[in-house]
């Protein structure tokens, strides 16, 4: 008798908790979705300013999400990576427009300026945030290289947070797929892009994540 009462109370409690959870999720999800759409809108403006011929930020975010989920990212960690991927080049909007839209290769001074965009992006986002958040930090490090020769901080290997390492691969994949104002499309197929990712594993990219991408790639069956 006592056990039955206990079970009944337990079932009622679990039902109530589940109800509260779904009610809460229903309340928060649309906000999250709206927020995500808003970020996506901002990202598309950045893409236009950068001179991309496609929705670069969205593509980077989708690739980053694919790698991150396969690597076990979830919850807030995954949300932070997606937001950072959408906004990774936001610092470029603060650079002179002629650098972004030039049809020529950048000279040394322009390259130096261009390389400040992760810092500008981080600084501007951080200045608007009250609580500590990793999104600005991920943006800061999306051009770091596994071998320590990236920028701005020359972080090396595991020093680079995993989210930034994933973003670096996703950004490179997208950049290789499309042309820019100053260069034509460099790779003919996903297979060629994957060969370059493999070649740069352990140099530009985290070798473990590069290997993971090679399994996830749309061309995986052909590799």
């Amino acid at each position, binding site marked *: 008798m006592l056990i039955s009462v206990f079970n009944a109370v337990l079932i009622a409690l679990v039902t109530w908790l589940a109800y509260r959870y779904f009610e809460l999720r229903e309340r928060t999800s649309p906000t999250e979705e709206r927020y995500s759409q808003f970020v996506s809108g901002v990202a598309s403006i950045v893409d236009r300013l950068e001179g991309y011929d496609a929705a670069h930020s969205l593509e980077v975010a989708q690739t980053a999400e694919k790698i991150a989920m396969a690597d076990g990212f979830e919850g*807030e*960690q995954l949300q932070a990576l997606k937001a950072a991927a959408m906004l990774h080049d936001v610092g470029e909007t603060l650079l002179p427009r002629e650098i972004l839209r030039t049809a020529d290769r950048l000279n040394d001074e322009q390259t130096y300026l261009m390389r400040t965009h992760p*810092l500008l992006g981080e600084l501007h986002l951080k200045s608007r945030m009250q609580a500590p958040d990793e999104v600005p*930090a991920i943006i800061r490090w999306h051009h770091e290289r596994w071998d320590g020769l990236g*920028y701005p*901080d020359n972080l090396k290997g595991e020093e680079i947070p995993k989210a930034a390492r994933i973003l670096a691969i996703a950004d490179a994949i997208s950049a290789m797929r499309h042309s820019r104002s100053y260069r034509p499309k460099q790779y003919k197929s996903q297979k060629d892009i994957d060969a370059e990712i493999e070649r740069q*594993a352990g140099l530009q990219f985290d*070798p473990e994540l590069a290997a993971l991408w*090679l399994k996830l790639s749309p061309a995986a069956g052909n590799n």
Partner: protein
Amino acid sequence: MLRLQSSWLLEAVGEIGGVDSIFFPCFHRFSALSWLSRKEITLYLNSPIDSQAMLARAWLTSRDGGFSDKNLLKFNQVIKKPLELEMNPFKTWKERLFTSQQLDYLFYWREAAYEIDDEKQREIFWAAVYQILSYWLTSKGFVGRQTLEPDQIMAFCLEQHRSFVKGRTGRIEISNIALDELAVDRNPLVAFPLLFDDEETHETELQTVFHAWFHGHADLEQARRDIKNCLRRYLISFEKTPDYSTFVRLAANADMAVLCWSGRDLPPKLYEQEIVEPMRSAFSSRYGRSRLFFKAVDRSIDAYDYLLVFHS
């Protein structure tokens, strides 16, 4: 593991006073200083570890171009027949760390470097080996086929070095002096990247392997002891009673001191308790004020970066 963020460091100290030079009594990794080496700031860098000081010289003070084409042609040879393993001083690393082919090249590159007359050129060549070791050690087992042959990766690393040193103008002095013997000149800022005693990372393993290779032996325990010995009283240990007298002595003539470290798996509150408060107490006779800055890196694993600035 430490993420030194030089621009953040300058922002933090910039709120207190401008700096035209920075003294690093012990830097943790040469390439982390790249951003500062391109600024109009004089850098005084010291590493008590000879192999690390050599790497910094090769990467940060080479302004007149990289490895010459003539030397590249002469010293970046392809080994066509496997070398006699018994002759190889690194033979005990076989399979555990490197393949036979890689060991052949490690032996050949070390010997070939002694044939290079110009010391700067020799150090650039050795420094490329550091990059190659890093590549081989960290990509071992992950990628099905490494598409670059040893001579190709050597050429690639030397080319990277050439791009890295291009346009560097800052004034940089690099020394290799034991911390106890290091003279402490007047300086606006002394920076201490904090190193933790119990930390084993890819980078610490690489530094150990490179140190052994640089000294021509395969004894990693010996290399580890050498490095630890050079860093004694600088390494932070949570196990022992803190003794920060080395830090205080090295900051004796600096207007400001900044400590930087990266933490994970522990909340900021614990770092405040275990590092910030003891450091504040140690530096209290030298500096009247201090300020702690921290940044979130990955809150899911309590990863934060810290800067602790002391000033008068």
